[in-house]
């Protein structure tokens, strides 16, 4: 891999602008493909849980179904409700979309396959991923629809509540590795994966990650049975597709981060690094899909109570204990 990519890396180091453009397009295109594959995976796994065949018409095992769906969404008329606050409404999916994809630049998929290794990588990912909530709020407000407004407000409350324990859980591996760089954290897990040293942190991270990506059982912002479509009720066609892709891109993002922080990133025997990375991400994504298709949805206030009264103290305790053990020299 290193040798194969070396000429390109040399070229990009000489012309940084070209390098950035190519890297951006690669991340964007790659993640779009991953999101499309993921939609198919979700539909197939869900179909399996529900004892039905799922998409099976286009391509082998319905493999092209999501591509057709995406093309269909692109071709659809872009309906603009008369009552919307146009610029707020228009910008919302763009912000959500960009936030979901921009965070990928620091994720190390492989020892060499990454765009930029920032020395504040963890901080950067959380900061960028937090943009998404602004877009959701704008969508809820700008749509001028009461269901959307509820969805947007719920989303804001939920994401703020769950971000705190999530970051606290992510600080455990940071403390262990002694670096904020994602690449550094993966390299520090040479011997033992942090999921073994941080089991509580891992569980907290997983739960909050489900909430961060607005998926069942924490899919308050779009709770179909209550709010019809939540914040994206008034969106159709391309704009809806952007929300949709962003949701799946976000899911891959939190799973990638979990892989980097807890599951040893690209490390594993025999297979090349990026294969291991995507296998681990795929496993976590499968967990997410499993949750979604078996659990009912919690209520909005139960969700808040769970975040503030259970997860946050637990995450604090976990971090304190980790720090204590590091100081005592156990880890």
């Amino acid at each position, binding site marked *: 891999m290193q040798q194969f990519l070396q000429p390109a890396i040399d070229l990009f180091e000489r012309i940084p602008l070209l390098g950035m453009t190519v890297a951006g397009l690669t991340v964007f295109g790659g993640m779009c493909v991953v999101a499309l594959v993921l939609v198919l995976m979700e539909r197939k796994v*869900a179909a399996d*849980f*529900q*004892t*039905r065949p799922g998409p099976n018409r286009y391509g082998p095992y319905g493999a092209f179904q999501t591509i057709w769906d995406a093309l269909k969404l692109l071709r659809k008329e872009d309906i603009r409700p008369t*009552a919307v*606050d146009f610029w707020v409404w228009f910008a919302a999916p763009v912000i959500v979309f960009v936030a979901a994809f921009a965070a990928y630049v620091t994720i190390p998929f492989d020892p060499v396959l990454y765009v930029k290794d920032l020395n504040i990588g963890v901080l950067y990912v959380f900061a960028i991923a937090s943009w998404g909530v602004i877009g959701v709020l704008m969508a809820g407000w700008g749509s*001028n629809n*009461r*269901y959307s407004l*509820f969805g947007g407000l719920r989303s804001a409350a939920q994401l703020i509540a769950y971000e705190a324990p999530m970051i606290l859980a992510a600080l455990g591996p940071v403390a262990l590795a002694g670096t904020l760089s994602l690449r550094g954290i993966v390299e520090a897990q040479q011997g033992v994966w942090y999921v073994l040293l941080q089991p509580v942190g891992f569980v907290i991270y997983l739960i909050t990650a489900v909430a961060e990506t607005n998926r*069942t*059982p924490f*899919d308050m912002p779009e*709770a*179909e*049975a*209550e*709010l*019809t479509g939540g914040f994206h009720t008034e969106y159709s066609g391309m704009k809806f597709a952007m929300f949709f892709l962003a949701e799946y891109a976000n899911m891959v993002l939190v799973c990638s981060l979990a892989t980097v922080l807890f599951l040893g990133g690209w490390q594993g025997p025999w297979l090349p690094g990026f294969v291991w990375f995507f296998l681990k991400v795929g496993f976590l994504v499968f967990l997410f899909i499993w949750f*979604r*298709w*078996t*659990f*009912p*949805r*919690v*209520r*909005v*206030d*139960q969700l808040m109570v769970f975040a503030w009264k259970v997860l946050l103290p637990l995450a604090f305790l976990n971090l304190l204990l980790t720090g204590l053990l590091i100081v005592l020299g156990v880890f």
Partner: protein
Amino acid sequence: MYLQQYAPEPDSLESQDLWVNFGPQHPSMHGVMRLLVRLEGEVVREVVPIIGYLHRALEKIAESRTFPQFIPYTDREDYLGAMNGNLGYVLAVERLLEVEVPRRAALLRVLVAELNRIASHLIWWGTYSLDLGGWTGVTYGFREREGIVDIFQDLCGARLTYSYLRFGGVSRDIRPETIQKIKDFIPFLRKMLGEYRTLLTGNVIFEARTQGIGVISKEEAVNWGLTGPNVRASGVDYDLRRDDPYCLYPEFEFDVPVAVEGDCYARYLCRFEEMYQSLRIVEQVLAKLEPGPIQGKVPRVIKPKAGEVYLRTEAPRGELGVLLVADGSPTPWRLKLRGPSFNAVGAIPRLAQGWKIGDLISIIGSIDIILPDVDR
């Protein structure tokens, strides 16, 4: 510019009420019903149900149809419990006609009524799971119901609107293959109900969403006219099959599940347990089934003598009352149907007041309303 409408007045700090329309097209309205909901944040302060989107004037239609012609309309009153709809109407007319129903036909009536009750409860189970965000339950519920629908198709050719019952009997005899099908189906459903328990009943989230939600006391439940599993969940031990028997129900052994909590979870458990009890009745019917005629002697033209009859049966959703007034002509002079769902809709404002939006959905799902039965 529209946003100004909802924003508070600039010179006051009072907040405005938020009225939200739930329905008539809404994912968790079971049919076309509209709820006007006044919200204070997430809290439901007031609910105004608006019904009538499915009104077909069934009662008025009855006055221009002959007695047998109205049987297919009773299928459409509560289409998930069509056999039970048939049963209530047919029994009322038979009481006016004073005809004898052969034993085999009477047993078949109990059989189809109980199977239909299970089918109706299976759909309720699936949609309740869906209302609470569990997408998988709905496919399971419909899959098992399919077995019952297939049995009915074997029996009478129809899958939803059966019109199986006739005055003095039933339209077709049951075939041995169909009996075998039912015998195979009973253990299968028992196994599946066990699976349902592991999927939903013991789930922590499910319990958090239903326990203690939408509580209604014994007295209030009676005063609001709730019937069937809804009132049994509040501690009223009352089941028309046992307390005001019709058909051959006194011959069968079954328990009436009663809970005392009166919340969504109690209503859920009552309905769930009823499926087991109905299976018990079905088993007993099959054991008693003997060859014989399926149609009693009825006049060629159904012309009951003038009179009035009120008859109530235990439909899947509660008490189905039929008031029939005949004047000696071949058409009813007046028919009044008392459906269980209508009263249940009336109780939604009482049940949902003070709870959150999510609870409102949970409550509507737990009382198991069906809109054609509300509007008629």
